[in-house]
């Protein structure tokens, strides 16, 4: 247990170094620079002003110097300063990260709930109309672009029925107490989390179904039934628990991609998360901001992978023995 955690933590440092160097190189290899974008946006054309700005943004130094400076500051837990936002990188990210994390967790919860239920039902009622309907739904939600699902949900539930807000995270211009505020956020969360969650739910449903069917054929299930356990207990306590391992693997992998996968959903529902910030930062070659998001993202992925390892231990005692 402790060994796993320590090993994972030790892996984080080279991982983050790699993330920094690779992405720094990538963004500098892309044509155009933050400086070009900033000065063109600001319509700065006076050569003297251009030189002054070059110096202010620190782009008058060689690229390698810029890179080492950046790594040095990250070692001091300082993610640098974004001249585009006129604010420290960490401040800007911290303003928008909570929204993304909330959306991610809610979408994950929906995906697990819907996906596992659907997968279990499909495997128990295998080759019936239920199974076919669930498979059809899974294919549909996996194939349909999430922005389209999002817009369609908005048109139906917000515009036509007026049940949900069309976007945003809170009702604007209100000063609720903490409890009211939490409820308000949850209310705004329903559509985006569902739109994002259904895509992942489709994968979980398919994997869960296959995994359940595989476990059903194993000997210990027959033993459990022979012991006279009820059908429900066999399914939940014996088959499901053993079928969960691939889902946990998927979950760990997808926690990382969700950070990026929410860009589209955040755009559709104007959810004030990290997605739009990352997109804008890449488009404007704002490398301190891009690297800041990626560094924090890789931390998140590392931590979530360590968590997945620990969940494995809980689920399958055999892993501990290795």
């Amino acid at each position, binding site marked *: 247990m402790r060994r796993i955690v320590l090993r994972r933590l030790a892996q984080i440092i080279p991982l983050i170094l790699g993330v920094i160097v690779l992405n720094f190189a990538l963004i500098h290899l*892309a*044509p*155009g*620079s933050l400086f*070009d*974008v900033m*000065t*063109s*946006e*600001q*319509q*700065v*054309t*006076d*050569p003297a*002003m*251009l030189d002054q*700005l070059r110096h*202010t943004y620190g782009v008058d130094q060689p690229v390698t110097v810029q890179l080492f400076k950046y790594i040095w500051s990250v070692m001091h837990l300082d993610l640098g300063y974004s*001249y*585009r*936002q*006129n*604010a420290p990188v960490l401040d800007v990210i911290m*303003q928008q990260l909570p929204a993304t994390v909330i959306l991610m967790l809610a979408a994950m919860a929906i995906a697990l709930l819907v996906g596992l239920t659907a997968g279990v039902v499909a495997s128990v009622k295998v080759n019936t109309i239920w199974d076919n309907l669930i498979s059809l739904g899974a294919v549909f939600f996996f194939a349909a672009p999430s*922005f389209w699902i999002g*817009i369609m949900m*908005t*048109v139906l539930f*917000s*515009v*036509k*029925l*007026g*049940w*949900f*807000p*069309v*976007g*945003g*995270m*809170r009702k*604007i*211009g209100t000063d609720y107490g903490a409890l009211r505020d939490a409820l*308000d956020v949850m*209310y705004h969360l329903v559509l985006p989390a569902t739109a994002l969650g259904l895509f992942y739910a489709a994968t979980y449903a398919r994997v869960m179904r296959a995994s359940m069917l595989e476990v059903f054929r194993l000997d210990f299930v027959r033993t459990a039934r022979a012991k006279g356990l009820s059908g429900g207990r066999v399914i939940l306590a014996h088959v499901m628990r053993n079928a969960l391992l691939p889902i946990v693997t998927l979950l760990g992998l997808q926690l990382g991609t969700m950070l990026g996968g929410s860009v589209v959903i*955040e*755009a*559709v*529902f*104007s*959810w*004030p998360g990290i997605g*739009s*910030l990352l*997109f*804008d930062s890449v*488009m*404007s*070659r704002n490398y301190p901001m891009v690297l800041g998001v990626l560094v924090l993202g890789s931390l998140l992925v590392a931590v979530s992978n360590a968590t997945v390892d620990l969940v494995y231990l809980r689920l399958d005692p055999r892993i501990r023995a290795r």
Partner: protein
Amino acid sequence: MSRLTRRDFLMTTAAAGLAASFAGSAGAATAAPKKGGTLLASWGGFEPQALFVPAGGGSSPYFTATKVHERLFRLTSELKFEPELALEIKPAADFRSYTIKLRDNVKWHDGKPFTADDVVYNAMEYWKPISGGVSLNALQGAEAVDPLTVVLKFSAPVPEFFLKSVLAGKAGLVIAKHIYAGSNIITNPINNTPVGTGPYKVKEWVRGSHVEFLRNDNYWAPGLPYVDRLVIRWWRDPASRSAAFEAGQLDIATFNPIPPPEITRLTAGGKFIAETKGYSNSAWVTTVEFNQRREIFKKREVRQALMQAIDRDFIADTVFFGRAHPSVGAIASSNTIFFTKDVQAYPFDVKKAGAMLDAAGYPIKSGSRFKLSLVSAGWFEENIKIGQYVKQAFEDLSIDVELTVPDRATSLKRIYTDYDYDVAISNNSGGIELIPTTTQYYTTDGIVKGAAFRNATGYSNPKMDDIVAKMTVETDEAKRIELAHAFDSLAATDIPILPMVDLEPVTIARSDVRNHSTAADFMGDSWSGVWLDR
């Protein structure tokens, strides 16, 4: 929480929509303005990088900053200058100095008085070095004669219309000396919570979502602003904006906020209007640029031929759904002061274009005349389609076209820094005043490698430079208009770069939003007069 609205959606296919949508005029204030309410606003672009970007920063920060920072003058949609923080401006007999009288009893949001010292600080520390750039090259000094009088001194005669345009334009925002003095204006963190004299104060900016402004109760204009709260919110997606309109969560949005096909549907019911006023001082065009560092495009006949090969009606009708029209010359047709029809026209004529290319020495040899690289700047959705269309149009002339549509940063670099293109499709927005925004695409001193949105074609013509130099110091308005026509005529004939279509941006607003679109650049107006009729 939510109102359970039950609406009937009668999807009428009758095309009565457009006629009805322009019937309700936006400026028509029928009754006494009502006070109060929350105005929910947006625009057809994304969130700004900072609420106020001193050097400009594009449309989005300009939209938010102008609700807080005011200017000395504003330009109305009738193209009249109205006093804002200044009461009047008078040129000296030689037009080398101007005396500005300021409004009394104006307070910054923090309660400190606005005085002549602020204007002197702005003129010398902000407008001249940062926001105004070349347009204030001639500004030599500013002096506070008394707390409400400032004299600006210039090294050369400065036309009155020109100076007023600068002061009322994007570069003329007035910032507080006591807040900025001694700091780097561009990187001052206060730019994310700006403090100005305007009708609205910043309450809170929730990054990624919206910024909330509250009414400035000590605003200098009695009774203004009418609304208690202004919320500017951003969506990254046009379809989401139209959903927000329909769900009652958006009142007004400027600069093409929703997909063009949706405009007809939304305005059909009379609940929303589409307003085209309020864009004349920020006239957007789509341009085609010919790189004259290449042998082929040095020939004027080639440039003229290629322009004739482009069906600009098609671009306006198909790509822009009719919300654009073919340009005439180098000056936007919405520029009622300087525009002239009297320039060389380029009607769509493939046969003639082919004949001109033959005559210029580029006949079809083994199936092709020559190769060219076409770069269409990918910052607007429409440019992707225009690029594809122009590629086909040139291929109809048997020219091999290699089309690239790079993203924003790459486009900037290829067109304006590396000059790595043969023909480029780009955009710009110019004000009524042509100098320097419009003219620097044509003058020799407009060539600055690495500086975007100016002469990237390498065109250099002493005659052109001379006309613009004269215009810069000509103080007689009538003579200035003549010079502008001469400029336009030469630009249209030489065609180093020329607008293809003038965009007709629209503002979408609920019909109970009153008194909007009253300025020549409404997005950058303070919106103190807007009120809600509910």
